[in-house]
């Protein structure tokens, strides 16, 4: 499986590490040319390939967004056509400005990204845990300590695919429902910050 990660910050690097451990082929892009992230990728995620964002989008079968939410309008829409896009972003007022300036009031942030990428299939995942929690709590399937990660998408097929990735990376997938359901995972909502078991996370969906 070719997994692309757009964003070479704390979250992007952490997810790349988990994916490499799971045996995936991984490519990572930063905000500028590949030279800027080449050393970080070489040292922190040995085995991953540093690429431009456009190349990551074209090369990978599934792409994770690990960028500040406010930058989603800079994504290469054409190159992401037909791809599964995992939205791991969160609204962070200090960096992105007020929510209403980047996302319509009536939409979850992942719905806004889906509208911007109409021919991609967006799945919200890896967003409600912090990057160091993802790193510390990844466990193989069957482990008693395994924590749950919530997924939301409007595409059943994409959800199934991403659920398998979530499991491979060390978490129990819990499917919440459509992208609009994803709103409860946003900062300040009841699902944000939850590091908990699948049983407890499922209660959220009800």
């Amino acid at each position, binding site marked *: 499986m070719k997994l692309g990660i757009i964003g*070479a910050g704390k979250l992007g690097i952490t997810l790349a590490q988990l994916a490499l451990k799971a045996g995936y082929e991984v490519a990572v892009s930063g905000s500028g040319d590949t030279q800027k992230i080449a*050393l970080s990728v070489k*040292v922190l995620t040995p085995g991953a390939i540093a690429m431009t964002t456009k190349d990551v989008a074209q090369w990978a079968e599934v792409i994770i967004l690990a960028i500040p939410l406010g930058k989603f309008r800079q994504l290469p829409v054409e190159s992401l056509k037909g791809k599964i896009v995992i939205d791991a972003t969160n609204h*962070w007022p200090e960096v992105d400005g007020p929510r209403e300036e980047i996302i319509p009031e009536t939409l979850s942030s992942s719905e806004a990204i889906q509208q911007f990428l109409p021919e991609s299939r967006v799945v919200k995942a890896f967003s409600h845990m912090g990057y160091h929690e993802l790193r510390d709590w990844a466990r193989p399937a069957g482990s008693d300590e395994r924590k749950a990660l919530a997924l939301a998408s409007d595409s059943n097929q994409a959800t199934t695919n991403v659920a398998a990735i979530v499991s491979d990376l060390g978490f129990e997938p819990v499917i919440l429902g459509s992208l609009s359901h994803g709103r409860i995972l*946003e900062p300040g909502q009841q699902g944000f910050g*939850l590091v908990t078991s699948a049983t407890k996370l499922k209660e959220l969906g009800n």
Partner: protein
Amino acid sequence: MTKQSKKATSDTYLFGLDSFGDLPTKADGTLMSHPEAIRQVVEEAILADKLGINRIGLGEHHRPDYSISSPETVLAGIATRTKNITLSSAVTVLSSDDPVRVFERFATVDALSNGRAQVILGRGSFTESFPLFGYDLRDYNELFEEKVELFSKLLPEEPVTWEGKTRAALKNADVYPKTEKGLGVAIGVGGSPESVIRAARYNFPLILAIIGGAPDRFAPYVELYRQAAEDLGTTAHPVGMHSPGFIAETDEEARKLAWPAFKTSWDRIGKTRGWPPYTREQFLYEIEHGSLYVGSPETVAKKIAKAMKALDARTFDMVYGGGPVSAEARLKMVELYGTKVIPMVKELLSQ
């Protein structure tokens, strides 16, 4: 891996205390005012100096729960009442300050303290200073990048010519006062790979701010710093780390004192960032496996030594007294850190 770390003696390890000037409680249980809290930090620094603690680092915040917005002013107060302790910011939010002014103020503290001032630069994890001083958060990266560049040019203490977008240009500008031995500088990083490489690019020592999760996850960042220094032809200085903690006579007492204080402080910050309330489970996890150094001197010393070994860190700074704990318990903690924890850590590291 470039190993310039020869087998170190215990003297090569340095230990410090960091404070944001949290408001402690008084004997009657009420919170100290901002002026009282600032004077309390001065007393703690004086005690730390007497006990031979190597560094006091003061953070810059612009919020009601922390009394220190101007670390170097407090450091100036500490300077004239202490002898040996290094006087540091932790951190100076350079993005929303003027590098020339920062240099002048710290050079002044350096004069008052006979060469003990140190600037730790950082982007900071709070952003209140941006609107307060008229900066746009959208320029976050550019502001820091440019200002670090200018600041690094000031350090040789020779006339500077510089041009950028975030500040008026300088043409052959000389900046005063000059220092006697140069100003100490380090860069504090919270885990952004870009910041680690920046520290190497400017030839600054790296201090890792590890405020949650297992400390050993930062080991690759230490390697990144060393590799970057090698690639860029700069020096890989000894690496430092900074984490929160609390020490009392016993584990039980330390947890009893620290839990409500950490919870208060965490939940207050969490509210603005959309985090759920801090749980007892998280608190205990961080003590056992993560980055909370809470417990008896022995518990804390073992945990510090383990983390320093894992990261090959040469300095450890404990953020002490987070949240509303009593002033008395804070002083006691400084005493235990200086008299018990530090000697134990040195002993453990020399084994």
